């Protein structure tokens, strides 16, 4: 027991003894500061899913925005924060927050989606947080261009890679969360070192004081609590780059392992949509209603959303909201008057500016990434 006491906190130890004593449940309360009711997948570290009912506005409020953490988050004080620029730079340096705030600030609207959003839909099931529809949100992100930050240190822009480390560190022998991404994306004018989220300083849970904004790319690339940017000749080869967050080049038989040599780093996200105004098992009255949802396409723009209310026999184009942008989702809506009572299967299928369309079946992969099958919600219409 002595060794255990050194490693866990008192509350956990009490819970351990409660379990040992055969008590069914320790009815303590866990606090998630700054969040409205959300779906709880993990309380330590916090992994929170946004209920789809909150997806009725173009911008997702910070207090319902999903949270994904691999390892416990650090708490950083603005005064003591330092961002180190290193690797292939003329003059390695450390920046204070105030210095980063002095650079020209830009705002980009972008949808942030967890690489594993929708993992819970895959069969056979795969390990990992069982996200359904809510590991996604759309926000306005503000901060300096990453290229402007890197210029301060005289970065060698001919080098192919930028490696990013955050202040979070692994417990026990859990690997540190480090990512690399290509210089080309680092120099994209929409790639920012984000300081604000929907006009407010980044909340602690979302990476205060600085997180990478990599529009259109998977959430894993959006490193939080950024403390180190290194210009490099080679990509980082730690767990979170390899084998973590890779997708099979060729689809594997569901349930089978992937060939390590055929796994590729995930970058831009696929085309996808959700039905959000109704949810599974909901009962609705038999009268005219407006079906609504969201659609997004990584670095592409959404050009079309088709909706079916009869399980896919017939489809009709939905009306799209005015925001016709790369990186950010669009809201869709379509009026529907149920023709009779009974059960209806509602589907949504998005198409993007590169011609990609959602598949009927998501591509199974061992880690459950990039689920993007046509969305499907079943509702029961009640007669008058």
């Amino acid at each position, binding site marked *: 027991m002595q060794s255990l006491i050194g490693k866990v906190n008192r509350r*956990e130890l009490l819970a351990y003894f409660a379990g040992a004593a055969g008590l069914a449940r320790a009815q303590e309360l*866990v606090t998630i500061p700054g*969040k409205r009711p959300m*779906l709880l*997948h993990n309380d330590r570290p916090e992994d929170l899913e946004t209920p789809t009912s909150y997806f009725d506005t173009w911008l997702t409020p910070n207090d319902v925005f999903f949270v994904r953490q691999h390892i416990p988050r650090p708490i950083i004080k603005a005064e003591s924060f330092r961002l180190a620029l290193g690797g292939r730079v003329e003059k390695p340096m450390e920046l204070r927050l105030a210095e980063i705030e002095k650079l020209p600030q830009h705002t980009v609207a972008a949808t942030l989606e967890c690489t594993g959003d929708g993992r819970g839909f895959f069969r056979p099931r795969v390990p990992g947080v069982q996200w359904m529809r809510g590991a996604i949100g759309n926000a306005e992100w503000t901060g300096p261009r990453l290229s402007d930050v890197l210029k301060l240190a005289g970065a060698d822009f001919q080098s192919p890679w930028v490696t990013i480390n955050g202040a979070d560190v692994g417990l026990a022998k*859990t690997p540190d969360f480090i990512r690399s991404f290509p210089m080309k994306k680092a120099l994209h004018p929409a790639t920012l070192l984000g300081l604000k989220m929907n006009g407010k300083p980044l909340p602690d849970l979302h990476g205060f004081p600085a997180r990478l904004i990599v529009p259109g790319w998977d959430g894993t690339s959006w490193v939080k609590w950024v403390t180190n940017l290194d210009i490099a000749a080679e990509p980082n080869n730690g767990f979170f780059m390899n084998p973590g967050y890779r997708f099979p080049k060729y689809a594997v038989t569901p349930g089978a392992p992937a060939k390590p040599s055929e796994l590729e780093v995930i970058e831009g996200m696929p085309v996808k949509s959700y039905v959000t105004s109704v949810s599974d098992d909901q009962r609705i009255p038999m009268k005219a209603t407006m079906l609504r949802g969201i659609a997004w396409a990584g670095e592409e723009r959404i050009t079309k959303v088709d909706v079916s209310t009869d399980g896919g026999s017939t489809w009709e184009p939905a009306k799209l909201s005015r925001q016709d942008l790369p990186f950010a989702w669009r809201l869709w809506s379509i009026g529907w008057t149920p023709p009779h009572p009974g059960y209806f299967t509602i589907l949504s299928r998005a198409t993007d500016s590169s011609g990609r369309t959602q598949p009927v079946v998501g591509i199974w992969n061992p880690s459950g990434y990039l689920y993007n099958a046509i969305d499907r919600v079943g509702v029961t219409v009640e007669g008058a």
Partner: protein
Amino acid sequence: MKAARITVLLIAIGALARAADSQLRERGKQEEQRSCIQCHSLRLVDSQRLSRAAWGKEIDKMMGWGAVVPDRQLLLDYLSEEYSDSKPVPKPELTADGTASKSNH
């Protein structure tokens, strides 16, 4: 009489098996707590539904990352039984204005 005796015997065996099950569950839960809570809450574990082979891989991955698992066999038996891929996944709990009841951990 003989049939009655057999019935009693079967009931007794059933009760013993149930007691063994509940003992495995209790010991398994303790093993899960002491092996996993050092790094994360048990909610993350208990929301998974995996095959025995997949549970084995997860345990080995976590041991590789420094988890101290005193009785790997017990933990594997417990997780494979309690959180088998043949069981339905519970809906995640909704936090209530920043708080939620903490599940068994």
